């Protein structure tokens, strides 16, 4: 990725925040998982989050579409604040798609049904139109020929691409990815990352939890490092990898890069 375009984006859209997280805390029982998260994501910005296991990366992005509930601070998505208001939650879920580590496709439905379920039932899109959209995105993730198969008949990489297409069918403004490639066999990682890179090139706003450093370097505007429920540091990929500021970041990078 060239830095020019990314700095440009940052300049024009400095006030163009799509996600704002302000001093957000979350506890699981007594366990303080997220300890004061502050994060602003601008339109079309791509952020990669890394950090050791248990540092709260998944919890953070799951809070953004309310799969987890935060207890203090604010989360504002596209001007809508996440509160207990069901209407707001619905609106925010309509703007935020998520891709899980374990794909979570619906095994009893075939691929096209997996893709059209959300649009048809939650959005009331006519079936024919929903199927057309579904085929469009299946082509985008390079597996239109699998449309009538069931998830169990697909490889892991194919399933994850279907899961990405399923989220895209809802026409989200932001895509969240929670370690999308870590359940995959090595030879399938690339096909999924390629799809994500294409998505990035089309200007999707993305928050990706991932330890794929190559992906981070080529796609991310910012890489964040999380540890013990806090964002320790965040920087442009070159800076982040070549010149990490904190000892913990250095330690972590030395562990994953070797």
């Amino acid at each position, binding site marked *: 990725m060239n830095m020019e375009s990314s700095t440009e984006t940052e300049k024009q859209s400095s006030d163009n925040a799509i996600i704002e997280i302000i001093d957000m805390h979350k506890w699981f029982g007594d366990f303080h998982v997220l300890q004061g998260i502050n994060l602003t994501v601008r339109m079309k910005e791509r952020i990669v989050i890394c950090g050791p296991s248990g540092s709260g990366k998944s919890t953070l992005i799951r809070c953004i*579409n309310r799969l987890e509930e935060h207890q203090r601070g604010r989360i504002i998505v596209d001007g809508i604040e996440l509160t207990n208001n069901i209407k707001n939650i619905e609106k925010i879920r309509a703007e935020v798609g998520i891709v899980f580590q*374990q794909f979570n496709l619906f*095994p*009893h439905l075939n691929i096209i049904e997996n893709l059209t379920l*959300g649009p048809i*039932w939650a959005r009331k899109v006519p079936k024919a139109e929903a199927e057309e959209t579904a085929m469009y995105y299946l082509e985008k993730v390079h597996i239109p020929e699998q449309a009538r198969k069931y*998830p169990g008949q697909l490889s892991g990489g194919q399933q994850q691409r279907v899961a990405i297409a*399923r989220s895209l069918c809802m026409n989200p403004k932001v895509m969240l990815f929670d370690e999308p490639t870590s359940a995959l066999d090595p030879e399938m990682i690339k096909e999924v990352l390629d799809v994500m890179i294409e998505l990035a090139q089309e200007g999707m706003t993305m928050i990706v939890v991932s330890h794929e450093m190559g992906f981070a370097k080529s796609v991310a505007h910012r890489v964040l490092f999380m540890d013990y429920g806090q964002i320790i540091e965040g920087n442009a990929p070159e800076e982040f990898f070549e010149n990490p500021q904190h000892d913990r970041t250095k330690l972590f990078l030395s562990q994953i890069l070797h």
Partner: protein
Amino acid sequence: MEELVQGTQTEELKPPVASVGFIGWIKYNLFNDVFNSFLTIIILYFLWKTVPPLFRWAFIDSVWHTTGTACRDATGACWSVISANLRFILFGFFPYELQWRPLLAMFILFVLLFISRDRKYWKKPLGYAWITGLFVMGLLMKGGLFGLTPVESTQWGGLPLTLLLSFFGLTAAYPLGVVLALGRQSKMPAVKLLCVIYIELIRGVPLISLLFMASIIFPLFLPEGVTINKILRAQVAIILFTAAYIAEVVRGGLQGMTLGQYEAAESLGLNYYLTMRLIILPQALKIVIPPTVSILISAFKDTSLVVIIALFDLLKTTQSVLSNPEWMGFSREAYIFIAILYFLGCFSMSNYSRKLEKELSRGD
């Protein structure tokens, strides 16, 4: 030349003679070692001792169309007890000349059930057919409209009554059981508590006591002059009872679902109702088809317990025939007959469930 070579090759590839054909099968499956040969011989001996006499009793020495007295001279089975009393066994006290009506009603039911076997007909028209069918069946049983003579439900009996109790018992208990299972998983404490109490209370008592309560204790609480049809009360008791068991089985299926399925549905913007209907229940209910069918089958057989509150179901009409001095003592034949009827019912249910399971498993 080449052909010849190929010919010999195919011959060589043929399996050894001993493993094919009838002899091969017997050798392989029945006499493959000493112990199995021993078992085979014992079983053959046992069959030889029992089957021919049984066959003789049932078919050769048996009598089919005689009076009860003539039966007593026969050495074989007295199927006359069935043939002479068939209409009473099947229809109980339903007015004799009107018995074509329950017969027709049962016929409609069987046709509808048969059509519904095939999932490709599970569309709106079939729904309308069922609604019409149920209305016509009710009309045939009850009469009172279109010049049909009214028949009190106290006169209903025999097979139609058994089918009525089972059909509505099972079809109403299933959805109720699913709702109870969902309630038991609910995040709302009050709903959850109610469902738990209900399920545990019902499972804590035998069906017989529920039937007694429905038929004897429950009417005591009704205001003067209000009566509720006895069949309906038994029906409700059967539904409530079966639903509690279904609920527990379905709960097992729900527990088999991963959190990821809920989260994926939620993130697609599906609400609770849609998530359950489209994602969770189709999978959970499929997993529990075998135990569900076991419960439905035993519920079908348990409808015969209404005997004790003096409803004239199939078992009770048979018993009353047997208490007639002319036919006393032929209970073997009579019970074999209704056993066959029950078996047909249960067997078709389990058969159908296997077919359904196979069809639904194409996704995995």
